[in-house]
């Protein structure tokens, strides 16, 4: 019996050592973690005791909300999803995934519903985080039924206060799923949103209280995506009980400066405030009038889009036309002028003195006042010997 204290000491030592070894070594953590570790155990997400930035040893499915998310195009997902895992009193839900995916484009995209997608993995199925039956041991995680219903009803209640079960699934009478799962009209899209041509925003800025915003031009001409400005807008921010109300939602809740600064951060106040309503941006003001062919190419043919801004492109012709105009891509003969032996060696600017696309000037070489007109060809204006 006198060995007992020694045994106890050894056991105690081992226990302490074991506990210390299990204590995860908290090294540098990604930014989100500071908040997250207050709420969840490390083991909630990580398989190993010592996750590192290089090897986070993430479990495939662990679910801190909105931790990771990715957005895809709506048509990359399935058209219809049959939700039949909890079939009981009601027939399975035929969920029109395509239509709903399209609706989320004005909101947060896929993460509106798929709020957890581990990096480089397809998003997990709902049931992989939300258990079929609620676990009494873990009351923090909604069960699968709660997760489904909250996800749907979160919007549907806002939409029209309709909470009848039959909106999504018919009550079982005979039993099985009625009709074919593919009879859905998967082409249901949001009706085209009426886009305002010009919105005049009233401000309290002294030196110009009106800010004209040419909405259509921003979309059609400058190629702004809806989500550039319309972020986190759900159905109810535009619709009150399924009726169209303010198409933009409540502007008072949007910081318009932050929105405009995304592109106009180098412009001064007067660029927007007090600007004449018809003072539209003219590409010619930049010294590069968009004429003939250049008017028909998209902005990003010349500009690269960096986040929401357009880069300043080089004005060198050869940057876009490395082969010049004699190459295969452009046949100068379509203009009526064959770049023959005499003209082929001339530089573009020898004739097009006014810039690219400008009318060619012959008098630089020919002193007989000849001009070239595209439709009629060469025409002498004076005496032509």
């Amino acid at each position, binding site marked *: 019996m006198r060995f007992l204290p020694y045994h106890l000491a050894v056991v105690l030592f081992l226990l302490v050592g074991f506990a210390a070894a299990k204590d995860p070594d908290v090294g540098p953590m990604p930014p989100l973690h500071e908040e997250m570790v207050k*709420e969840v155990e490390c083991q909630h997400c990580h398989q190993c005791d010592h996750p590192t930035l290089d090897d986070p040893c993430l479990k495939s499915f662990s679910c801190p909300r909105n931790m990771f998310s990715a957005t895809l195009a709506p048509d990359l997902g399935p058209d219809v999803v049959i939700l039949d895992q909890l079939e009981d*009193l009601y027939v399975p839900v035929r969920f029109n995934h395509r239509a709903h995916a399209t609706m989320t484009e004005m909101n947060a995209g896929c993460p509106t519903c798929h709020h957890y997608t581990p990096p480089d993995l397809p998003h997990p199925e709902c049931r992989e985080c939300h258990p079929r039956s*609620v676990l*009494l041991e873990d*009351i*923090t995680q*909604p*069960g699968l*039924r*709660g997760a489904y*219903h*909250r996800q749907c*009803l979160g919007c549907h*209640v806002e939409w029209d*206060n309709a*909470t*009848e*079960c039959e909106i999504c699934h018919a*009550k079982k009478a005979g039993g099985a799923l009625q009709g074919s799962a593919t009879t859905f009209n998967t082409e249901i899209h949001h009706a085209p949103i009426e886009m305002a041509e010009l919105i005049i925003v009233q401000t309290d800025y002294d030196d110009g209280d009106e800010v004209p915003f040419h909405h259509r031009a921003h979309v059609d001409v400058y190629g702004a995506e809806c989500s550039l400005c319309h972020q986190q807008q759900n159905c109810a921010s535009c619709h009150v009980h399924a009726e169209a109300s303010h198409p933009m939602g409540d502007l008072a809740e949007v910081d318009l400066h932050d929105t405009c600064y995304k592109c106009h951060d180098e412009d001064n106040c007067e660029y927007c405030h007090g600007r004449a309503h018809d003072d539209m941006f003219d590409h010619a003001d930049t010294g590069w009038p968009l004429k003939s062919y250049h008017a028909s190419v998209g902005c990003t043919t010349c500009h690269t889009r960096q986040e929401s801004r357009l880069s300043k492109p080089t004005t060198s012709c050869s940057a876009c036309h490395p082969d010049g105009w004699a190459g295969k891509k452009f046949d100068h003969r379509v203009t009526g002028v064959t770049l023959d032996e005499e003209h082929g060696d001339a530089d573009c600017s020898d004739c097009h003195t006014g810039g690219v696309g400008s009318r060619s000037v012959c008098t630089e070489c020919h002193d007989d006042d000849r001009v070239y007109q595209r439709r009629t060809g060469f025409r002498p204006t004076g005496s032509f010997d």
Partner: protein
Amino acid sequence: MDRREFTKLLGATGLALVPGKAAASDPHPHARKVDGIGVLVDTTLCIGCRKCEWACNQSNNLPEQPLSSFENKSAFTSNRRPDAAHYTVVNESRPDGEPIWAKVQCMHCQDPACASACIVTAFDKRDDGVVAYDASRCMGCRYCIVSCPFQIPAYEYDNALTPQVRKCTFCLERLDEGRAPACVSICPVECLTYGRRDELIALAHRKIARNPDRYIDHVYGEHEVGGTSWLYLSSVPMTELDFPELGDAPVPCVTETIQHSIFKNFVPPLALYAFLGQIMWLTRDREQDAEAEGSDAVATQAVRDQGGTTL
């Protein structure tokens, strides 16, 4: 005056009679130190489908059974109370125009007034937190009905022979099988969360901290009448959803303080009896004296009449 107003009046009268000390927040000496199980109701999630009412009736063999009769939304036109045939009801309120639904049932108080009021201990706050009713002990006095701050217990007035008090049983049989109460199990949006009360309170406060715009910063039932096993989260004060506004002191803290003060060490009753006895004794002495004086005079006269002398 309907029953509610009457009981309100009773309560108000009772409170007016209570000395200030009784309302102090001293832990009630008889408060049971149980934290047991509970249910957290998130009224911001409830969609008013009334499936909990249906499941409750099924589980407790209550008369109204078909699911279709619970799909009738016209039930929301009036504010309903649980009764002998419905242990739980869902009511709709529109404090700000938008509907908010809230389930009403026995709150399973931490320090239940019904158990305190019951003179035959038919109500019992079990260690697991359930306020259970034992019909075999009940004698039908219905003090429990008067005492309940939430006005929950109902009586089978139409049962002439074996009437019982009826209220939410917390689905004791299901709990014994390790299952959640029927209403919790059926709820499609899981706005009912069944678990340990302390964990539910922690969960409720986490939810409030995460969504400060969604909830008011108050968990109804955490402190009301000393705490209840059923807890409510809401976007507006629960009083706007027709729940009573209650203090933190348990109801028995008031009633039992009165009772126990009156009978403390049996001194007040003894003092009262002593006081009354003294009055009786004093009154009785005067009458006897008068009587005695009167009889002496008569005796003296008689002796004189006989020509004798007195001693």
